[in-house]
């Protein structure tokens, strides 16, 4: 991970901003909401046959949950964005790594969304849309105030630099 970050930062010569630390807590909560019932049910099912089976099921399901946790943690850490003079940079991805550059003038519209879990943690997702369907500039897990700041700044910059098709 660290290597990726240094490569990206060095390659672009910019410092990335990160999503709010609360994003990780939101993801933990989401993981717990799935993992706890799974562990309980698996252990219960194992207990029906024997103690060893229950123990094995408990350990296996805990290991799976831990693995999922590690993946989620790395995913959360992989998000980064940078507002440069003329464009916005969004970096993300663990297995497939992506960096997207969107010139401010190319922005067609902005989306700020907050799902139920995000709202619980005071977070929001900002998404940029260009005229190209393939553009995938999405920044999840921003603190609500940061999301509003980013939205206003991007909208102003987009207005100032708007270019035709």
């Amino acid at each position: 991970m660290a290597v990726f970050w240094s490569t990206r930062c060095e390659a672009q010569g910019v410092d990335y901003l990160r999503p709010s630390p609360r994003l990780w807590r939101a993801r933990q909560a989401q993981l717990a909401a799935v993992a706890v019932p799974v562990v309980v049910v698996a252990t219960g099912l194992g207990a029906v046959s024997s103690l060893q089976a229950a123990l094995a099921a408990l350990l296996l399901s805990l290991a799976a949950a831990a693995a999922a946790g590690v993946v989620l943690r790395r995913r959360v850490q992989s998000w980064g964005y940078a507002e440069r003079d003329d464009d916005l940079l969004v970096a993300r991805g663990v297995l497939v790594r992506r960096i997207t550059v969107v010139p401010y003038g190319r922005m067609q519209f902005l989306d700020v969304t907050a799902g139920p879990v995000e709202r619980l943690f005071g977070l929001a997702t900002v998404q940029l849309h260009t005229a190209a369907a393939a553009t995938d500039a999405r920044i999840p897990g921003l603190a609500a105030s940061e999301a509003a700041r980013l939205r206003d700044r991007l909208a102003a910059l987009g207005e100032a630099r708007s270019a035709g098709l």
Partner: protein
Amino acid sequence: MSDGVVPAHSVGAGPELPIAWARLHPLSPLAKGGRAVLALVAVTVPRQLAGGGLEQSRLGVDAAVAALVIAAGVVSWLVTRWRVADGELQLELGLLRRQSIRVPLARVQAVDVVRPLAARLLGISELRLVLAGSGTGKARLAFLPQHRAVQVRAQLLALGAGLTGETAEAPERTLASVPNKRLIASTLLGSPAVTVAVLGTLLVVLTVVAPTSVGPVLGAVGTVLFGAAAAAFRRLNVEFNFTVAESPDGLRLKSGLLQTRAETIPAGRVQAVRLIQPLLWRPFGWCRLEVDVAQQREREVGEEDVGQLTRALLPVGDRAQADALLARVLPGAVTHPPPDAQAPRRARFKAPLSYRRLASWHDHEHFVARTGRLQAATVVVPLAKAQSIRWTQGPAQRRLRLATLHLDTAGHRWQAAARDRDLDQANELLRRLPSLARAARAR
């Protein structure tokens, strides 16, 4: 609607565009309901004949249905009006759900003249305005008299370009046309040839391995063959008699067997150009040139044959023709890779079939990426049209120190992807392309 006086200085421009509300051609409902009427006739006539003479009750029902269809068409024609005012094309349509459509002419990407079979027989044409946004399928004038449609298109395009509406139809010069023999041969060498080859092999293998199962399989084979034939015919129907001409307002494409279509692609609206060379075409040195403009085609009844195909700038032709056309659309773009454009040799571990063809290069105006083994494709994107730039690296690429760079455009069909570049080179591209694109936009 065409009662304007022709001003002396615009001979050939035809009457002025209507400033007051005007109706479309009175035969429009007939052309629009052409399919419905044909279907009705096809159902009714055999039924009447089969009965061994006319039957009063059935005839009554059929006549009522036909009358309803015609009445609906006439009402729809009566409530549809159009005019040009304030640099907009204004359309009003619908009886129960009244709709008012305003099309700013400066935003028009292209104007197509479409003539379905029924309209051709009646001597009328449809004008279709192509815009960048979605939901613009209703921006159309269906139908106008044939010669008038051509005039109106020229006038709309002239108004959109900021000229007066009296500008004459711009003169045009034919750049290329495709002989129908070559078009048919190339179409057959495409998916139909592949289908036949695959099915033939399958049948031969089956006769050897399991002779008893050939019978049931034949039915399925027939269906697939029919599908392939239909697809080939669709392509022929759209691209028959193809000519491309140059005029001051852009490139004019004309083609069509049953339904003819004349499109204008305004200069500077091209988002990307693709040159493809299918495997079976290579012995003949043929290639195909396609353009992408910013638009979303509406899926509509009767339009599926056009909507599924890309706009070919040259359905089939030799490389010199394609390069000459490309030079018209995107001057200065090069489709032959410079020596250092190849992907590094280690890319063969990730793309064993196509790594020899993988290449990408760019200058201050264009970004070009070449991919593909079976269907070699070269995509040229003007840097000024880049909407966003994406750098991606999958796990295999990470091992090999490779990365892929995408240039996204407002076109909807393809984006240029420089696959499997050396990591340092990809990083360098990611750093340089945004500023190059900015400079290109500013020009």
